[in-house]
């Protein structure tokens, strides 16, 4: 009886885990604290980017960045390198892009960013960005 209960519990946990993975589509997404990410955004991004819709600064607005095709805001003048980038900003892509110098991640970009090497802060930041839709 006990073995049956344990087996059911394990099966339930496995299904829940698979459901969560399907929901997030990424080992990084939802792992961060969006509230803490707001502070990271202020210190790392806010000089050049706004999270307000339609508000471009030196860099484009990051409203709706998660899920947006790269270089696709119509009212922002991107570098050729980013305008022609073939990717969509998924949480995975943002994780890879922001964890290294921007010029290494996308040679030819105008973005001057040295990268965020604190994994916890990076996850918090991406979770924060994912709240803007």
């Amino acid at each position, binding site marked *: 009886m006990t073995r049956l209960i344990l087996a059911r519990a394990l099966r339930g946990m496995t299904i829940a885990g698979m459901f969560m993975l399907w929901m997030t589509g990424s080992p990084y997404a939802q792992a961060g604290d969006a509230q803490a990410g707001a*502070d*990271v955004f*202020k*210190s*790392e991004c*806010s*000089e050049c980017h*706004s999270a*307000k819709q339609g*508000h*471009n*600064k*030196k860099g*484009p607005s990051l409203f709706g960045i998660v899920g947006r095709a790269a270089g696709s805001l119509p*009212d*922002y*003048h991107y570098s050729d390198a980013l305008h022609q980038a073939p990717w969509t900003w998924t949480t995975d892509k943002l994780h890879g892009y922001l964890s290294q110098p921007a010029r290494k991640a996308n040679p030819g970009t105008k973005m001057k960013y040295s990268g965020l090497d604190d994994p916890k802060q990076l996850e918090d930041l991406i979770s924060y960005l994912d709240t803007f839709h």
Partner: protein
Amino acid sequence: MAIRVWLGMAMALLLTSHSVHATPAYARQTGSPCADCHAGAYGPALTPYGMRFKLNGYTDTGGKGSSIPAAIQLIGTHTVPTRGNNTTQLTEADLYLAGRITDHIGGYVKVETDNTGNDHFHTKLSNVDVRYVAKELKLGGRDATLGVSINNSPGFEDPIGALPNASNFGPPAISGTLLNPSSPNALATRVIGAVAYGVLDSSWLGAVGTYMAMPRSTLSDVGYRPSDDPGKLSGTGYLRLAYMKEFKHQFFSAGVVALTTKRKLPRNAREDDITDLGYDLTYQFIGNREHILQLSYVNILEQRDYGSTFSAPFAPGLSTKQHVAAHDQTLGLTYTFKQSYGITLAYLKSTGTHDPVRYPPYGDPATTSQLITLFWAPFGKEDSWSPFANLKLAATWFRFTKFNGVRNNIFGVAPGLGVPVTNARDLDQFSISASVAF
């Protein structure tokens, strides 16, 4: 009469010392609120981001095309001097022409109208800084920015903003160095020069340039009186070297500055040989901009070799010294909370060689003063009512602890003449000001 002149001079020095400037034209151009470039949302102290904007020749944009490169500032002040009558008046009205002309050319021009008393207004050309800049270069595989600044104040071009002409904040001085805008016959805004500069890896800054005095007729045309004449300059050289290091949440800089010139003052006099050498240190804690701390120290020593000396009318045989020095120091600390509320504390000291003929009545030009300012800048942030228009309310206490080298009886009034004695603290002034910029 002489005492009134001295008091007027002291007040003029004081007003020069805490004039501020803000340019919402840049905010409109970049799409960035004032608080991105300034620690307190109204300015003037620059964040590292603001320093980069200045180094880039005021040309960075938000990519939304052109904006009107102009802004206006109005300042009203209620002044409570220790001596004299309280006044409430519009003290300053400024027009800024500021912003990007092309991708490589940008500028900052301030036309300032001051209330000289009883609502008599006087307009003059204040700071000018027009730049050509080549950005995002590679020199030997390293990131570089090269530029040329045409400006009218030696040191104004400096991005760090600690040098007196860049911060518009120097010690009230009776002698004073050439690099101090509060010195008598200062060079600030009354000369014209070119400075070539370069930045390597966003850290190493070098600038070299030269200046000449504007012709007297031109000085008059742009609003300066004959008594403002900085004299005729020749062989003028300017050098600035600095190391800047920006960490994620902090900024540090250490720099040296030099200015050398031969000056005729008045213009038909013999040449004085003058050299300023100085150094400056700054530190900023920026964090997530909730709490910002800015600390700066500037120390400038000037060596003067006067071309001629003159005798004392009151003591025949006693002459002015030929080889003298002047020394200006400024220590400043500003704490800003949420880029809205702040306090600035500053200690300012100007000293010089003892000279009984040149600096009556005691022969000592030493002046020490302190500034305490509390300010509130409610707008100019991204979530503000208007990120591009701004307001600053400030309460400032400017106090003197030494003038003419002494604390008491600073004008050396002889007892028994019935003339009131003036002490250094009688020059103190409390003021409340409201500044708006749009």
